C-alpha cells in the first residue's frame, strides 16, 4: 500500500513512487497534479489565487498559481525528474456560491483555472486532463502508479482522470 500524503491549502509536496498525494475539499482553489512517467515521481500543489503579482514580501509562494507551479516543477526536478517528461492534470476551481449579481470576487475559481492553464503552457507542460468548474467541492488523489487522478465529490460521484 502506497503512502498517503496530505497536501493542505496553499501547500505543495512531491513524492517518489510508491506514493499517493491527496488534497481534501478543494473549492474555488485548484489542485495541480504533476506526473513523470519515467521516474513515477508525482507532485501536487493546492493554489488559492491566480497571480503572485499581489504578493508582499515573505508571503507563501504555494498559494499562487504562477509561483506555486514553478516551485512544484523545481521540486520535481530536484528529486530527479526531467521537465520534458512531466504532464499535468488539474481539478477544482468551483464557484461555491451563486449570486444574482456576479462580481469578480465570485469568479475566482474560473480565474484560478485559467491562470493554472496559462502557467503550465508557458512552461511547456502538457495539460492532459482537467475537471474544473461547477459549484461543488472535490477531493483529489494522485497515484504514482500510473498518474491517475481520482476526483471525489459529494453528490456528483467519483471520476478518474
Amino acid at each position, binding site marked *: 500500500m502506497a503512502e498517503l500524503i496530505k497536501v*493542505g491549502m496553499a501547500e505543495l509536496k512531491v513524492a517518489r513512487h510508491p506514493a499517493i498525494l491527496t488534497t481534501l475539499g478543494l473549492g474555488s482553489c485548484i489542485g495541480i497534479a504533476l506526473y513523470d512517467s519515467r521516474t513515477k515521481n508525482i507532485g501536487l500543489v493546492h493554489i*488559492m*489565487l491566480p497571480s503572485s503579482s499581489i504578493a508582499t514580501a515573505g508571503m507563501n509562494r504555494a498559494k499562487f498559481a504562477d509561483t506555486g507551479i514553478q516551485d512544484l516543477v523545481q521540486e520535481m526536478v530536484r528529486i530527479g525528474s526531467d521537465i520534458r517528461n512531466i504532464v499535468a492534470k488539474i481539478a477544482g476551481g468551483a464557484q461555491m456560491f451563486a449570486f444574482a449579481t456576479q462580481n469578480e470576487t465570485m469568479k475566482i475559481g474560473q480565474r484560478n483555472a485559467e491562470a493554472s492553464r496559462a502557467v503550465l503552457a508557458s512552461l511547456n507542460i502538457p495539460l492532459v486532463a482537467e475537471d474544473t468548474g461547477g459549484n461543488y467541492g472535490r477531493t483529489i488523489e494522485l497515484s504514482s502508479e500510473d498518474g491517475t487522478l481520482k476526483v471525489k465529490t459529494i453528490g456528483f460521484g467519483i471520476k478518474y482522470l
Partner: protein
Amino acid sequence: MADAISELNSFHLDVLREIGNIGAGNAATALAKLLDKKIDMRVPQIRIMKFSEVSDVLGGAETPVEGILLQIHGDISGSMMFILDYPSSRLLVNILMGKPVESDLDYDELTCSALKEIGNILAGSYLSALSNMTNLKLMPDVPALAIDMAGAILSVPAIEFGKNSDTVLYIENVFTDGRDSVIGDLFLIPDDLSYGKLLEALGVG
C-alpha cells in the same frame, strides 16, 4: 500592504472579540425568539489559523457543512460568512420545523429556505452589532447558501483573506439551550479598501 492579520494587535483583537460578544448576544436573542426556547451563548473565541490548518476545522475537510454567504454594501463593502456544522444545522432546522431533532435533513426547497433564514438572522445579528459599534451604515444582500465539503466552503473566505495574508481569522460561537449546542463560525471579510475604514471607525485605525 503588509500582512493585514498579523498586524492586528491585541487591542484590535479585543475589538473583534467585542463585536463577537455583542453579535452573539443579539444572535442568541434572535434564536430564542425564532425557536421559542431559552438560548445561552458561550464567550465567542477569536481564532487565527494557517491555511494548511483550515481543512482540520469543523470535523475535517470532507465533512459536509452549511455555509451562508452575505454580501455587505453601504459605508464599507465586503462579505460575511456563517458556517454551521451538520449537527448544528440539523438541530436548528428540525426545531424550527417541529420535527424530531435527530431526523436527517433532506435538502428540499423548504429546508434550504429555513437554513437561509437562520443564516440571515445570525449574520444579521453580527452585522447590527458591527454597525452599532462603528456608526457605519451596513446593508446585507440576500444570502446565498451552499452545502458541501468543509474545505470547499472554507476556501471562499480563505481566498479572500489570502489576498492580504497567510492566515484566516474567524469567530467561533457556541449557543446552547442547556442540552444541545450549536456551533457556528463567523468570518468577516472586508474588501481591501474597507479594512482600514472599518478599523478607523472602531477607533483603532
